[in-house]
């Protein structure tokens, strides 16, 4: 328990923890002290003088800033005396001396703290008759943000945010006295990944949003609290809608998740929702099989049912498969797997990085645990690119709480600059190093715990290897791990794919268990709802609730709920299905045809259904395209990387005839079920029925599926509560606006123990070639990026390959040249870059660039790939 202090604010006695600022203590007493520079998430400064209040002492009272003075026992504060009122009026007068009166054309007008406080505390008349200072107006300090120096009141919030949270002090205070301005250094625009937060916290209209500028007045907006679906952090945000258009996204406070921050992708990438190229009606391939033509929902869904039914009847259920994106809501993911398991009768469902990755079922224990850790181990996970708000939390832990970072990655990621250690590995080589560390730590632990149960002794070979390894490059990592009292282990898909990835995860798990922190191991997926997709069983081998398909008891329980039990055989993986393992494929939100090889495989399908927002490369090949809504246009829940199930309610009317993913699946299932029933004549009341509507499939022998009756997304969530035990209590209303973490106690898990790992070191690429390294880039060419605003789109680099500067010199290659990069799986032409964070002998090609170069070269196959780099 922290020490408590009692003080009196305007005759109200209030008790707060020692160290609380007076401004916060007053808030706790229900008394508002006006502020500009003070911010609950920034260090105290006392720059604006707006919060001056009277402190009553033995020698009379004196004025001081409530935002910098901390409470003490028996303190008496007065906030509404004549003196305080006079000081506030005078202070606002000073602030307004040089503040332009352009409120009518200012984006902040209507939600401006300076406007509001001038109304509440200002004098009402100005004494100022001189000319105002002229400074630079509305000019860009980055692609995303405009600065108006005349409006700035020099509160330092933006300066402090970029310094204290981003560790990128890119905005400074230049000149002095009345000429003081904030600015960036010439030629060095703000490039912090969460820079947009300075727009939210600016107390005036000095910093404005270039994407949403002049597109609304704040009072016209319909505001809907929602969550971001661009990465697994699940930042809370607000959708600002006006006249059926998503005008702006701003951060929404959730102290457990994102404090009140958003990354720039989450904030600025929203114009895709209103993009003219959105699919607005269903499309079906015409009779000639050449072009896609608009169709009614009825026709499109019947075409799907008919074709899927025919192929299932002819080739068996296993000829049908479904590939989904893990960006979709829990409701969509749940109904998708239920459609295949309960109606089609196959476990052929998966998502990219789904069954190919060995994930911990429980995710991160809590985002808040980052601040409580003394060592954060990041294996194949780059939060700066993959999850920028998590990056903020980690940087904060490193700089404020003294946490050390152990970075195990093929590339020296940005976070590797903080105290700790960087351990370079080759892709796929993580298991070797992790196993060496785990074995050494187990041995050390066994030696220390003489008398208690000894850990399994390493074999002769492992012992030797371990000894050698720990003596050399593993030593710094070993020392950090051995000294850690509260470590946290986070790994990402780049270290966890395929067979080598499984070994790496096992070795990492052994490492965590050896240190006694097996429950502090977390997997963070690439897509926003990866955790939810796994919870829902959107996997070929796993049922809802993280239970294997081979578990008869779970199948029986689901059978009671669905009317039909899911099949016991594990289904086909994403890679197997995309490579032609099925004859008909249902793709929801994914784009396997982004690579040429992927597209070729899909050409061989008998039937392809694509459900998406846009006519993706995959949709262009489809026989039927179903238009889906974005997260902003439909109710849904999403589960973030710490198992927090959060509501994403509808905030805007859907584009055209597009429908929610879950609703499309529900409608499809109803038609599927109807096509299976015997025609009693009651169903067909329509006057003119096309032939395909009359066609009925034979009833299958055995139990019949229960009817699908989901009037709302909330009804789907109710059923999820029955199918996924940890979700039992998570009803829509219960989630509230901050979401609820599902409890791991409801999850039956195998006890964590050390499993032997048989692993060999990864050989470096042969001389003259490089080992391909890939991974996420924040501003990639991912599924929605091409449909963002122009300012956002231009942040994506032209496709490139980066080599270590030394390698570049050695190979006599020059930066900026066009090169052909060739692997066993394909070749691509890229621009060559030099990058010191790329380790010698490796070639860095980020994931999801235009034309999918990394994917074409085989980067996501979960095996080392060597590439040759030659001038074009």
């Amino acid at each position, binding site marked *: 328990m*922290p*020490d408590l*202090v009692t003080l009196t604010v305007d005759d109200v006695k209030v008790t707060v923890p*020692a*160290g609380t600022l007076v401004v916060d203590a007053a808030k706790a007493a229900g008394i508002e002290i006006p502020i500009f520079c003070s911010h609950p998430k920034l*260090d*105290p*400064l006392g720059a604006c003088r707006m919060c001056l209040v009277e402190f009553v002492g033995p020698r009379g009272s004196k004025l001081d800033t409530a935002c910098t003075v*901390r*409470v*003490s*026992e*028996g303190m008496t504060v007065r906030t509404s005396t004549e003196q305080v009122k006079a000081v506030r009026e005078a202070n606002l007068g000073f602030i307004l001396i040089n503040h332009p009166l352009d409120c009518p054309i200012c984006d902040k007008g209507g939600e401006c703290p300076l406007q509001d406080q001038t109304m509440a505390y200002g004098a009402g008349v100005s004494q100022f008759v001189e000319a105002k200072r002229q400074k630079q107006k509305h000019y860009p300090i980055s692609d995303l943000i405009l600065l108006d120096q005349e409006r700035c009141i020099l509160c330092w919030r933006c300066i*402090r945010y970029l*310094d*204290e949270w981003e560790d*990128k*002090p*890119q*905005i*400074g*205070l*230049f*000149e*002095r*006295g*009345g*000429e003081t301005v904030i*600015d*960036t*250094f*010439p*030629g*060095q625009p703000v490039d912090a990944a969460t820079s947009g937060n300075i727009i939210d916290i600016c107390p005036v209209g000095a910093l404005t949003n270039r994407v949403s500028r002049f597109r609304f007045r704040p009072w016209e907006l319909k505001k809907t609290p929602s969550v971001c679906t661009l990465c697994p952090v699940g930042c809370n945000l607000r959708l600002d809608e006006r006249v059926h258009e998503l005008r702006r996204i701003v951060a929404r406070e959730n102290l457990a998740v994102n404090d009140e921050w958003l990354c720039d992708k989450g904030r600025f990438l929203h114009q895709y929702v209103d993009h003219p190229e959105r699919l607005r009606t269903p499309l079906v391939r015409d009779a000639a099989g050449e072009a896609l033509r608009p169709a009614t929902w009825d026709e499109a869904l019947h075409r799907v049912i008919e074709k899927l039914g025919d192929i299932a009847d002819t080739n068996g259920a296993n000829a049908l498969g479904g590939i989904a994106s893990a960006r979709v809501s829990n409701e969509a993911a749940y109904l998708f797997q239920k459609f295949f398991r309960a109606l089609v009768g196959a476990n052929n469902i998966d998502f990219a990085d789904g069954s190919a990755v060995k994930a911990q079922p429980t995710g991160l224990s809590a985002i808040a645990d980052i601040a409580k850790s003394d060592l954060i181990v990041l294996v194949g996970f780059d939060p700066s690119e993959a999850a920028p708000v998590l990056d903020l939390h980690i940087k904060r832990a490193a*700089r*404020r709480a003294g946490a050390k970072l152990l970075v195990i990655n093929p590339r020296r990621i940005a976070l590797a600059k903080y105290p700790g250690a960087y351990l370079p590995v080759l892709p796929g080589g993580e298991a070797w190093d992790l196993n060496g560390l785990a074995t050494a730590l187990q041995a050390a632990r066994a030696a220390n715990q003489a008398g208690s149960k000894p850990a399994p002794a390493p074999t002769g070979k492992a012992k030797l290897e371990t000894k050698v390894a720990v003596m050399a490059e593993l030593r710094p990592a070993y020392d950090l791990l051995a000294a850690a009292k509260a470590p946290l282990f986070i790994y990402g898909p780049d270290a966890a794919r395929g067979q080598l990835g499984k070994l790496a995860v096992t070795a990492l798990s052994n490492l965590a268990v050896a240190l006694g922190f097996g429950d502090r191991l977390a997997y963070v997926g690439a897509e926003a709802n990866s955790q939810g997709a796994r919870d829902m069983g959107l996997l070929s081998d796993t049922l809802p609730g993280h239970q294997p398909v081979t578990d008869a008891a779970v199948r029986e329980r689901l059978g009671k709920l669905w009317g039909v039990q899911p099949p016991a055989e594990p289904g086909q993986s994403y890679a197997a299905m995309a490579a032609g393992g099925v004859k008909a494929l249902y793709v929801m939100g994914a784009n396997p045809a982004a690579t040429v090889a992927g597209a070729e495989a899909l050409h061989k399908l008998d039937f392809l259904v694509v459900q998406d927002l846009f006519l993706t490369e995959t949709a262009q090949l489809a026989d039927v395209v179903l238009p889906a809504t974005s997260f902003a246009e439909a109710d849904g829940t999403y589960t973030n990387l710490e198992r927090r199930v959060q509501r994403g309610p509808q905030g805007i009317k859907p584009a055209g005839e597009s429908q929610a993913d879950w609703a499309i699946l529900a409608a499809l299932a109803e038609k599927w079920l109807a096509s299976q029933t015997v025609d009693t004549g009651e169903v067909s009341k329509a006057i003119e029925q096309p032939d395909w509507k009359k066609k009925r499939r034979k009833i299958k022998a055995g139990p019949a599926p229960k009817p699908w009756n989901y009037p709302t997304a909330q009804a789907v969530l109710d059923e999820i509560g029955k199918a996924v035990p940890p979700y039992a209590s998570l009803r829509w209303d219960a989630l509230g606006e901050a979401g609820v973490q599902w409890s791991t106690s409801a999850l039956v898990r195998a006890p964590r123990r050390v499993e032997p790992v048989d692993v060999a070191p990864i050989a470096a690429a042969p001389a003259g070639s490089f080992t391909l390294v890939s991974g996420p880039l924040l501003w990639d060419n991912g599924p929605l990026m091409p449909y963002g605003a122009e300012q956002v789109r231009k942040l994506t680099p032209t496709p490139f390959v980066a080599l270590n500067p030394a390698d570049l010199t050695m190979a006599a290659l020059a930066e900026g040249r066009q090169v052909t990069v060739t692997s066993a799986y394909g070749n691509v032409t890229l621009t060559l870059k030099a990058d010191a964070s790329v380790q010698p002998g490796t070639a860095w090609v980020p994931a999801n660039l235009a034309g999918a170069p990394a994917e074409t070269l085989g980067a996501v196959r979960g095996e080392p790939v060597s590439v040759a780099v030659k001038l074009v």
Partner: protein
Amino acid sequence: MHAEPKVKPSGAALIDPAKEAMLLAALYIAQEQRGYLTPEVIDRVAARLGLTAGQVFSTASFYTLFRTKPVGRYVIQVCSGVSCYLVDGAEKVSDYIGAKLGIRPGETTADGRFTLETVQCLASCGTAPALRVNDQLYENLTPAGIDAILDRLLGEV
């Protein structure tokens, strides 16, 4: 006695005092070598000290003794801070010197001898109006005093 509040490290704890302390000295050296602080010089100082160029420029532009543009041999900095303004001095002093030298504040004489600047506060409020010529401070200025200063400087050239 009140209980000592348990305070978390504030913003000051984030700044490496060694880097910050070296900044002024580094800027002095750079200015001595280059005459004034070009963007390239600021970038180099920033890189050497592990600071951002913005942080370095923030400091360089705060202190009136650092220059970010080429200047004349004698830089006359006339204080235009509040005290100098209130003794009815600031504008008159710079106007007077400007008229004598034929330049306006911010300009340098054609022969490169004098640069006239107005600056924010020379911390000489008790002896306003004040000006500085290179590193020399002159206080309690009068027209006669200014004539004497300029005559002496012209004699030196």
